[in-house]
């Protein structure tokens, strides 16, 4: 059953088009993450769903009800803000029950629901405090509590973790994931952090310049990026891109870029001599070993992260350094000339328009 449907949603201010026609169907209980660089329109889209932002054209429906022109409070949504948006003059309890009290809910009902929500979020001992007396993580939980108590059809999260420090962010990420499992509610979550997107989402919507670039499960986006934009946005460290020409050597289709020759297999629908971009993830490369050698490279920088090591190597005829993901403690030093090999089978080929021609041999 679909909970939220967006039909050709657009938003513009005069001649400036922010959202350029979004089509999306979100299933009940799904955790969907909108991800994209800043200014891509992801927050605007979320705010249009919430009703805080008007929609220039198109239709938003929640549970098969057209809510395009319905005020936010009657859409069946709840929203968690980046800044938490807690009222400084109210206690935690009053913040959480704000909406209930506005609608003149009975005192018993308010108390009962508050107790439930406080229990879920472990806020019970903090109910009498003011927001100023809470830590960042606690404030975020209060903000989530205010959303839960509304029992909405759709939860909207607008970059909820970006004001927290790194350690707390990981912890809150886990809490949100567990909350989703517990409530089985539909959640839409906006972030610019692809790690948050990958770890939390059932489905990721990659947005760029007001358009959807690709929608899919995290692993799909990682393995089959539809275009260059998605390929470089998902995955860390970033995918290597090489400007290449299609060539046929000994009957095998190759992509040749400067000093690098990558074998593609024979099913890529591209003519010899055609300009393409080849994308290879750092984790598909290795130094030496059993894989097929694609080039010789000189190591420029080695970043040892403990659990893994990233080597950046220069190749003749290539402007950008090639990043190579290596095991924990490899024997490489800057200045070494090394053979670079392909371990993984995955080579992504993008046409001149940036669209994936074929993403797998």
């Amino acid at each position, binding site marked *: 059953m679909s909970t939220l449907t967006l039909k050709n949603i657009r938003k513009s201010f005069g001649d400036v088009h922010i959202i350029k026609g979004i089509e999306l169907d979100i299933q009940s209980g799904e955790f969907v993450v909108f991800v994209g660089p800043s200014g891509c329109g992801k927050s605007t889209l979320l705010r249009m769903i919430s009703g805080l932002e008007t929609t220039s054209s198109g239709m938003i429906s929640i549970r098969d009800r057209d809510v395009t022109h*319905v*005020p936010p409070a009657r859409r069946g949504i709840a929203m968690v803000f980046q800044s938490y948006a807690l009222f400084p003059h109210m206690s935690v309890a009053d913040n959480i029950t704000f909406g209930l009290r506005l609608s003149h809910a009975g005192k018993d009902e308010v108390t009962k629901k508050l107790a439930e929500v406080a229990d879920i979020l472990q806020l019970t001992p903090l109910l009498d405090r003011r927001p100023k007396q809470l830590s960042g993580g606690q404030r975020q939980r209060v903000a989530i509590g205010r959303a839960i108590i509304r029992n909405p059809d759709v939860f909207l999260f607008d970059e909820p973790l970006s004001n927290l420090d790194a350690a707390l962010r990981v912890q809150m990420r886990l809490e949100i994931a567990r909350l989703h499992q517990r409530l089985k509610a539909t959640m839409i979550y906006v972030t610019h952090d692809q790690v948050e997107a990958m770890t939390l989402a059932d489905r990721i919507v990659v947005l760029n310049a007001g358009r959807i670039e690709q929608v899919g499960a995290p692993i799909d986006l990682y393995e089959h990026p539809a275009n260059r934009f998605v390929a470089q946005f998902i995955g860390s460290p970033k995918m290597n891109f090489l400007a290449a020409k299609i060539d046929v050597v000994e009957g095998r289709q190759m992509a040749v870029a400067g000093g690098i020759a990558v074998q593609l297999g024979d099913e890529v629908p591209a003519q010899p001599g055609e300009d393409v971009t080849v994308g290879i993830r750092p984790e598909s490369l290795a130094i030496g070993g059993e894989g097929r050698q694609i080039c010789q490279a000189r190591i420029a920088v080695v970043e040892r992260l403990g659990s893994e090591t990233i080597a950046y190597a220069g190749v003749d005829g290539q402007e950008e350094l090639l990043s190579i993901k290596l095991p924990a403690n490899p024997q490489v030093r800057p200045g070494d000339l090394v053979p670079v090999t392909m371990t993984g089978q995955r080579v992504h080929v993008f046409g001149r328009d940036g669209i994936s021609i074929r993403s797998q041999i």
Partner: protein
Amino acid sequence: MNDRLASAAMPSFNPWQAAIFVCLAVLALLFLAPTIGVLLSSLKTTEDIALGKLWSFPTSLYLDNFRTVLADPAIHTYFLNTLLIAVPATAGSIVLGILSGYVFAKLPFRGSDVLFLAIVAGMFFPPQVILIPLFRLFNGLGLLDTLWPMIFVHIAMGIPICTLMMRNFFATVPAALREAAIIEGASEWQVLTKVALPLSLPALAVLSTLQFTWIWNDFLWPLIFTQSDDKRTIMLGLVFLQGQYSVAWGIQGALSLIASLPTLIVFLFFQRYFIKGMTMGAVKG
């Protein structure tokens, strides 16, 4: 930001909005009426006003009131005196405020918070509290009936607000900038003049507009400290001339307008700074 508040999904025409607009327009007219009244009276003959025609629109542009006022040599003296007080006093209070503001913001010491609060509190006391001793002081110095007492007093009375604003502004200059300059071998004085001050031009603009306006509009100090006509400031002169042109309402209107002209000009051109200064001075007080 405001767009975001406004654009919450709501019907595009809001009858409330229209009601609010009408409400504001009526209030604005009421608020403007006194000022418009002066403007109208300054453009009319005394006879017209006495005949009850003040509130009708002038049929022809009658500028004699302004001519009379502008030709009065006393007015020239008042203007000059006020300028001779306002310019040095504005500059002096700002310079002193810069010095103390810098220390409170960048070189705090034990007890500096208390000292700062004590100075700022000075802003709120009625001047009557120090009227008599100052009168005695300037009398003893033989400075009564000169422009000096006003210059000194306005510099001193300006210290609280100037200290407050400059401290708040210097507080926004990152400590790292000062430290970087110190490491480069700059003295504290060079940090102030070469780093902090060039960054503080907006604060200086705010303070100059505020101080100038207050000093220009002041009345109490010259009332106490001056006697002779050629030492009067514009506001004092205004009250004095009111007697001279007692029923010449049109001339009085022109007088008021001309006396307010400098501050009106400051307001028109520096409205943003002016409002900022008023709210900053008030909110952070």
